[in-house]
């Protein structure tokens, strides 16, 4: 076994150890739970960096496979067994670093943020199991373990979202997240079933090799596409793509650091990671569908984000939008760009959430101080002017906002540009021009709503002067992670060239994977496509800077200088505003159709079961009873009647004959003799 794989295993299992320690002995550790968990994650992070650097130094892929379950039988002359294993390649190491880094920072952040929580050690335990499952997704080399950890991520997000389960909204959100994810997982699972049925293996390597050799499920191109898309369903659920994006905004009911960890950087990125992993077996059709899903998602979410007032909701929709972006990037074939956007986004979006957490923390303390329980600590309309009070939070937040808006010199600029270039190239080859249009539109929208949030929160005047006095900068444990993440939002970490990522280490190490689908099904050949991206790059950069700048400008005009009245617009476009504010009525739609349908069907079936099926059973019993009553009557009247009649007859005869019975011995004797003589007379 390659020694580095031991390190990978150590990285994987350390958070699990942390989880087990805290879940069983959490009570004993009390306030030290956080430090213990943070220490574990710190070690994890160091190991991840170590693995990262040692892996990038080599081209080899470290892979180990063991047989988990052997069925001791052969199918098509192949031994039927389930292999599992772990694999470390460049993509894995990058993801390992992202996950452990964000997780570590969130651990640190939570030391302050969750200090007074009632279930402090439970919280850290849950963070541990989450990190474990997320790392599991990243290091496995097969779909089975992937699915296993996939579901475990679902569980741990359930636990984390529902951390404050006393609140109905929190437990609702947790439930919703799990169930919606399950719907996606169902597709994923069906995809796995198709693959397993055809190839009897679930390792990436095995499947890709088999597809490369021309074996297709049911010998059909459509089924290969379907398999890819079904696996993508998992991503739809986890990465909150349309139409299963509805859980993510609700998931903001969880503690803010949790939002940063799982709903910005890692869990939702798992879907994108899944697409990236599955990329070699995706056909052109599948990729097109994926691209459209991404585009639609990013557009819908961006429009909703514009009108939200809850700071976390804005960030949530921006996350959905950005995830759509990544999926779109992968869909159009800009593989490296999509993955890179995943990484850069992880850093700045986690930062955004943590910064918003910092703001909420400060607001909470102020409100708590004033005994104000009515004002919503997360509503941007009740904030404003926090710049002077919370400088570190402000400046880091600004950095993140710039990054997400795609302003040059930030990491976001690099990755977003590449995606947009990819969309342009894609439309060049395939004619799907809607995708780049949506891409640029969303870029502008993103810049607009992010700056809207930034301005409303930090600039201008605070709404309540009295409260303003009580707002302070957050403690170190909160702002240090912010600063670290802000640092990572600079371009230099990803490419030394500030305007193009394509010559950076990232593009070199995470390159377009070898596609295994049959040639006639594959997307545009890699070389041509990469070439075209280069062609489109300048154009994409110019356009993107343009639309972002425009978005930022409008935001400033509207909210900072107040040249345009947002309220007036809102009144003017009331129906549209309501439509967007109510999130395109997705929740209402689902409640009215899927949820109500299922529950209604459930009630109907329960009624059916109780009334019809059980009714038939009881009816049969009733019928039997009636028959038995009738036969009982028959019995008493006819059968028993005959018996009774016999008895009655006998009695009557007895009554008659009784008179002979005198009780006198001699009379009897007379009769006996008479009888004897009669007999005698008869026989003689």
């Amino acid at each position, binding site marked *: 076994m390659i020694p580095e794989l031991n390190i990978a295993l150590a990285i994987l299992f350390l958070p699990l150890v942390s989880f087990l320690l805290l879940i069983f002995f959490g009570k004993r550790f009390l306030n030290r739970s956080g430090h213990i968990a943070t220490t574990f994650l710190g070690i994890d992070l160091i190991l991840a960096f170590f693995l990262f650097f040692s892996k990038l130094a080599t081209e080899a892929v470290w892979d180990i496979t063991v047989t988990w379950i052997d069925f001791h039988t052969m199918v098509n002359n192949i031994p039927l067994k389930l292999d599992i294993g772990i694999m470390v390649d460049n993509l894995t190491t990058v993801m390992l670093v992202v996950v452990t880094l964000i997780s570590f920072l969130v651990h640190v952040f939570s030391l302050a943020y969750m200090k007074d929580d009632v279930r402090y050690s439970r919280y850290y335990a849950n963070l541990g199991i989450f990190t474990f499952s997320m790392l599991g997704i990243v290091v496995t080399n097969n779909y089975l373990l992937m699915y296993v950890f996939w579901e475990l991520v679902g569980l741990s997000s359930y636990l984390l979202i529902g951390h404050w389960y006393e609140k109905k909204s929190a437990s609702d959100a947790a439930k919703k997240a799990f169930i919606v994810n399950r719907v996606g997982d169902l597709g994923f699972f069906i995809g796995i079933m198709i693959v397993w049925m055809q190839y009897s293996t679930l390792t990436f390597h095995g499947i890709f090799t088999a597809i490369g050799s021309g074996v297709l499920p049911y010998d059909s191109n459509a089924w290969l596409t379907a398999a890819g898309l079904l696996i993508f369903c998992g991503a739809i659920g986890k990465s909150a793509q349309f139409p299963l994006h509805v859980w993510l905004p609700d998931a903001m009911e969880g503690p803010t650091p949790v939002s940063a960890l799982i709903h910005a950087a890692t869990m939702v990125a798992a879907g994108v990671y899944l697409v990236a992993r599955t990329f070699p077996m995706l056909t052109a059709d599948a990729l097109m569908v994926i691209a459209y899903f991404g585009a639609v998602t990013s557009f819908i979410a961006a429009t909703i984000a514009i009108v939200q007032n809850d700071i976390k909701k804005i960030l949530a929709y921006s996350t959905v939008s950005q995830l759509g972006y990544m999926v779109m990037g992968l869909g159009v074939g800009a593989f490296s760009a999509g993955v890179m956007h995943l990484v850069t986004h992880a850093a700045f979006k986690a930062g955004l959430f943590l910064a918003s957490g910092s703001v909420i923390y400060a607001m909470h303390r102020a409100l708590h101080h004033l005994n104000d329980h009515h004002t919503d600590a997360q509503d941007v309309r009740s904030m404003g002017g926090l710049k002077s009070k919370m400088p570190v939070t402000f400046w880091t937040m600004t950095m993140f906002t710039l990054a997400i808006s795609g302003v040059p010199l930030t990491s976001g600029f690099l990755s977003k540009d590449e995606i947009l270039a990819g969309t342009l190239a894609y439309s060049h080859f395939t004619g799907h021009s809607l995708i780049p249009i949506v891409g640029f539109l969303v870029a502008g929208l993103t810049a607009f709503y992010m700056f809207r949030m930034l301005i409303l929160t930090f600039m201008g005047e605070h709404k309540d002067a009295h409260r303003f006095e009580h707002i302070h900068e957050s403690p170190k444990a909160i702002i240090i992670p912010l600063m670290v993440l802000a640092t990572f939002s600079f371009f230099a970490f990803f490419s030394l060239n500030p305007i193009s990522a394509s010559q950076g280490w990232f593009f070199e190490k995470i390159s377009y994977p070898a596609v295994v689908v049959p040639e006639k099904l594959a997307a545009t050949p890699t070389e041509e496509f990469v070439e075209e991206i280069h062609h489109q790059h300048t154009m994409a950069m110019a356009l993107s800077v343009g639309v972002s700048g425009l978005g930022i400008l409008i935001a400033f005009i509207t909210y900072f200088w107040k040249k345009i009245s947002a309220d007036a617009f809102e009144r003017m476009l009331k129906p549209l505003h309501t439509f967007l504010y109510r999130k395109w009525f997705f929740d209402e739609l689902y409640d009215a159709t899927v949820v109500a349908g299922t529950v209604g069907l459930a009630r109907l079936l329960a009624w059916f079961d109780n009334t019809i099926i059980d009714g038939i059973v009881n009816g049969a019993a009733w019928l039997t009873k009636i028959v038995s009553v009738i036969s009982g009557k028959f019995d008493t009247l006819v059968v028993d009647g005959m018996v009774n009649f016999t008895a009655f007859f006998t009695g009557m005869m007895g009554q008659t004959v009784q008179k002979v*019975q*005198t*009780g*006198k*011995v*001699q009379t*009897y*004797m*007379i009769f006996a*003799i008479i009888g004897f003589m009669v007999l005698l007379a008869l026989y003689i």
Partner: protein
Amino acid sequence: MTITLTHFLLISAILFSLGMYAVLTRRNAIMVLMGVELILNSANINFLAFSRFGDMNIEGQMAAIFVIILAAAEAAIALAIVLNIYKRFHTVNVDEISFLKD
């Protein structure tokens, strides 16, 4: 006219009938017993008559002996019963003792 078997048999028949009549009609239990004795005697006469006129000399007499023995036993027991009945019902009239009816 010689005395033949038939003569004896007729005597025994008359004796039997008289005994039977006593058994059937007399109210007093002791009288009933007497009737029974008459019947037994008639039977004995028959035994002995057949014993003599048939060719079974000693056998008939043996039977008669046992009848006598049984008659003795019967008389003893029957009288004891009659005494008990008397103790209980203060009468020995069989027609008044009609428990069998109930």
